């Protein structure tokens, strides 16, 4: 039973950044716009009202027994009938609601009172306190809730309040972990540093910056925990280990189960009450989570719609494939030609946000084209559309891409033609990613990750592939190829991992390599080596390269031609010499100036166009 709580702790989003009061009103509004949110609030609100006014609403005392009228069906006096002792079901249901809600509140309150401060301290100060509390948490988490409550019952006797305090203590780790993780992620944020530098005390930092971050996850967590507390408390009562003087849903359920052969209906009401209450809490938690993640949810929903459209367009494109248009005459010799390409993402309001708009360029064999632009300029999206590796929800909104004389995105296509590209990928078009470590599967050796694509794509034997892999590792400048071959990704350095990825990219002798910021994640000293390696391989193998970068230095060093992108559009394209010497567009000039003055290339640039993209 404690498992579902932990899952909630895992699933609950830990929001970083400042999601304070500014965000709160929109979250509440989203919650009220969500049918699930309203339904849960109405259900929980009515149950709470019924519980509060139980003494007024209940026609009988909770233990008033009319022994002349046992197991009676519903009538005008006992609107839901009576149990085996002649007690009124409706009255007991109301008093049960009171006890259930109070005990759930008590449990959550105790858990918050322990878990929240402990999590704040452990997350903010770390050190010994964190180590000790982690150990305590791991013990508490490993005990099944019901068994602990049985022990508490054996020690202290039957009491709803004692068992709920005990369960609160037992479940406090879920608040502890939630808070600690949130605090850890915020602790080193710049604005917290700034607050510290400006002389704010630790406590006011925690109160102002950190508490606002954990507030929403805690509400979600509380909904989950209240549900689990109700379930486990009622379970204890169902076993006959609760307080016999109190009317509770668990006792009522057990009473119904004892008389299941006579009046099975007695089971229905307490079970319904329980399911409605816990279900309301679960829905409330989900609705709050949705309200916090509204943007993401919309994407998912759109994806589903899109999947249906996709199936429709797939059958349409089957017809289209037969009559697949030939590429424009006179352009067949280009290795890659991108014509008026547009890429967009569907938005919540049904519109499409373009991240690449009307981009055209080409690359020939043996040529290196640099695509330059700041973050969000659409350069990576352009590269991924050539590879056919755009995210699922991306759409081609215009233009075409051709590779070696054939369309991979024909004019009018909404998506990349995966059937065509999966034959090209790995074999003729390959990819060098930006971040070396995250692009190797940590569970497999480097050797395996080099050998398998060669076996699959080239159809050679494993031994043959192994020989080639070792040769490739030597080619990319790895001194001890055997050792690297047998190593796992975590056992090599970032620079070496990037060499491995380059080796992987050229392993099947492609015609085109797309390198997405291949040196950004590396040390400056390693960067030059990797660039030299790229140039050397490109010249030796006579391959075409598209080098995506934000760094004009890299362009000047390596490229033949360069395309400058800004806000999804192509600003300027030409030979590196021309553009470096004589940039026509003001944006290119700014970009170059910013670099030549020795500033970091990533600094914010003045946009000459309105409507920034992404």
């Amino acid at each position, binding site marked *: *039973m*404690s*498992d579902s709580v932990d*899952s909630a702790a*895992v*699933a609950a989003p830990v929001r970083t950044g400042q999601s304070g009061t500014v965000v709160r009103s929109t979250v509440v509004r989203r919650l009220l716009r969500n049918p699930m949110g309203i339904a849960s609030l109405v259900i929980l609100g009515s149950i709470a009202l019924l519980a509060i006014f139980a003494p007024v609403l209940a026609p009988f005392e909770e233990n008033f027994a009319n022994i002349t009228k046992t197991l009676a069906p519903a009538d005008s006096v006992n609107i839901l009938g009576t149990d085996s002792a002649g007690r009124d079901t409706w009255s007991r249901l109301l008093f049960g609601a009171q006890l259930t809600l109070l005990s759930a509140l008590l449990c959550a309150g105790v858990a918050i009172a322990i878990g929240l401060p402990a999590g704040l301290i452990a997350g903010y100060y770390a050190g010994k306190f964190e180590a000790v509390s982690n150990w305590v948490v*791991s*013990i508490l988490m*490993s*005990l*099944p*809730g*019901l*068994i602990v409550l*049985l*022990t508490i*019952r*054996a*020690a202290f*006797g039957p009491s709803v309040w004692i068992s709920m305090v005990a369960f609160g203590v037992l479940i406090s780790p879920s608040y502890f972990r939630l808070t600690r993780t949130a605090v850890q992620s915020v602790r080193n944020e710049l604005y917290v540093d700034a607050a510290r530098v400006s002389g704010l005390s630790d406590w006011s930092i925690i109160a102002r910056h950190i508490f606002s971050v954990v507030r929403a996850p805690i509400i979600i967590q509380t909904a*989950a925990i209240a*549900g689990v507390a109700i379930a*486990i408390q009622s*379970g204890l009562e*169902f*076993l*006959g*280990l609760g307080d016999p003087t109190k009317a509770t849903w668990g006792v009522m359920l057990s009473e119904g*189960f004892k008389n*299941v052969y006579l009046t*099975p209906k007695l*089971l229905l009401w307490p*079970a319904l009450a329980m*399911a409605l209450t*816990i*279900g309301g809490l679960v829905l409330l938690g989900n609705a709050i989570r949705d309200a916090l993640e509204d943007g993401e949810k919309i994407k998912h929903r759109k994806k*589903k719609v899109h*999947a249906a459209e996709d199936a429709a367009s797939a059958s349409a494109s089957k017809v289209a494939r037969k009559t697949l248009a030939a590429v424009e005459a006179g352009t067949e010799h280009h290795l890659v030609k991108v014509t008026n390409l547009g890429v967009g993402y569907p938005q919540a309001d049904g519109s499409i946000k373009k991240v690449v708009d009307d981009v055209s360029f080409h690359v020939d064999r043996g040529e290196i084209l640099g695509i330059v632009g700041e973050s969000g300029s659409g350069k990576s999206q352009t590269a991924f559309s050539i590879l056919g*590796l755009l995210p699922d929800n991306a759409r081609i909104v215009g233009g075409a891409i051709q590779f070696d004389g054939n369309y991979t995105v024909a004019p009018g296509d909404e998506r990349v033609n995966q059937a065509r590209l*999966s034959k090209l*990928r*790995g074999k003729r*078009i*390959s*990819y060098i*990613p930006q*971040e070396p470590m*995250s692009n*190797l*599967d*940590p*569970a497999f*050796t480097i050797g395996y990750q080099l050998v398998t*694509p060669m076996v699959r*794509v080239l159809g050679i034997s494993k031994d043959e592939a192994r020989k080639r892999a070792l040769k490739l590792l030597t080619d990319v400048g790895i001194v001890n190829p055997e050792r690297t071959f047998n190593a*796992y990704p*975590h*056992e090599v350095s970032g620079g070496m991992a990037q060499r491995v*990825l380059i080796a992987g990219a050229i392993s*099947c002798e492609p015609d085109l390599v797309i390198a997405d910021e291949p040196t950004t994640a590396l040390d400056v000293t390693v960067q030059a080596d990797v660039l030299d390696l790229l140039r050397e391989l490109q010249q030796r193998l006579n391959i075409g390269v598209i080098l995506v970068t934000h760094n004009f230095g890299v362009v000047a060093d390596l490229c033949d031609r360069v395309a400058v992108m800004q806000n999804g559009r192509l600003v300027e394209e030409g030979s590196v010499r021309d553009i470096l010497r004589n940039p026509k567009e003001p944006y290119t000039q700014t970009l170059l100036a910013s670099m030549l003055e020795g500033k970091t290339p990533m600094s914010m640039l003045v946009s000459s166009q309105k409507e920034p993209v992404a």
Partner: protein
Amino acid sequence: MIKFIAKRLGSGLVVLFVVSALTFTLLYTSSGSIARNILGDQATPEQVALKEQELGLDQPLVVRYFAWLGDALSGNLGASWFTSEPVANSLATRIPVTMTMVFAAMILIAICAALIGVAAAVKRGWVDRVVQVAAIVGDSIPGYVIGVFLVTLLAIQLGFFPATSTISPEAGPEAWVYSMTLPVIALLINGVTGGAQQIRSAVIKQLERDYVRTLRSRGIGEREILFKHVLRSAAPAGLTVLSLQLIGMLGGVVIIEQIFALPGMGPLAVTATGQSDLPVVMGVVMYTVVVVIVVNLLVDILNGWLNPKVRVS
């Protein structure tokens, strides 16, 4: 790897020691006059004093704990105060009943949750929607309430299954499986709905990892990426989910056994709790902690096998 296992085993023993000491202290300091409870109100003070001496309750707590610990290490967990049956014997006859049920349910949960969760993550669409809704419904209804309704509907009203499952394995495997079906179903429904949803999230998280895109760029097929790489990386998260469910199930099975009148740990624990039969309660807690430690150790070993980072260091 052996060092790793030894370390985990060592910390498991520490946990066992700490939990046993805490439970012992808790039980024996707060249960009021134990001898009076056993003998009833009619007993004279002399009889109570004699009983206390007999149970060793006149000794200081620390002495009693270490006496208990010494006995426990040699396999003697004491005897029930009410039936005089040795606790170790009761556990030995009841653990198999409970554990067969728990393991049958866990295996089925693992298979169903993994299949459904992966299908939802990969196919999305309606499968995903059903999984999401089922998770909410499963979270809303406690497992034992499902058990109560299964008995009422399928056993009592429709007569498809026996309402109580007191059939022993000697009655023949078919009859036994038949009698175990309902309790196992009652145990596994919440596990499947919750597990499927969590495995779904774990798989989606892995599918969005950078290396998956790179594998695609290398020309590796979708099927191979899913089965060889993604599922392997998602497995530790799935294992954690399943181990937490198993731990939770050790509690849930107590109620299920009570509902189906199964001669497992449940009725023993409930009776002992109601009577404050402390040696038996201690025995139940110890059995639980040992199962938890063994399960966690197995999960650690499996994770080590799946994750080279753990294996190598």
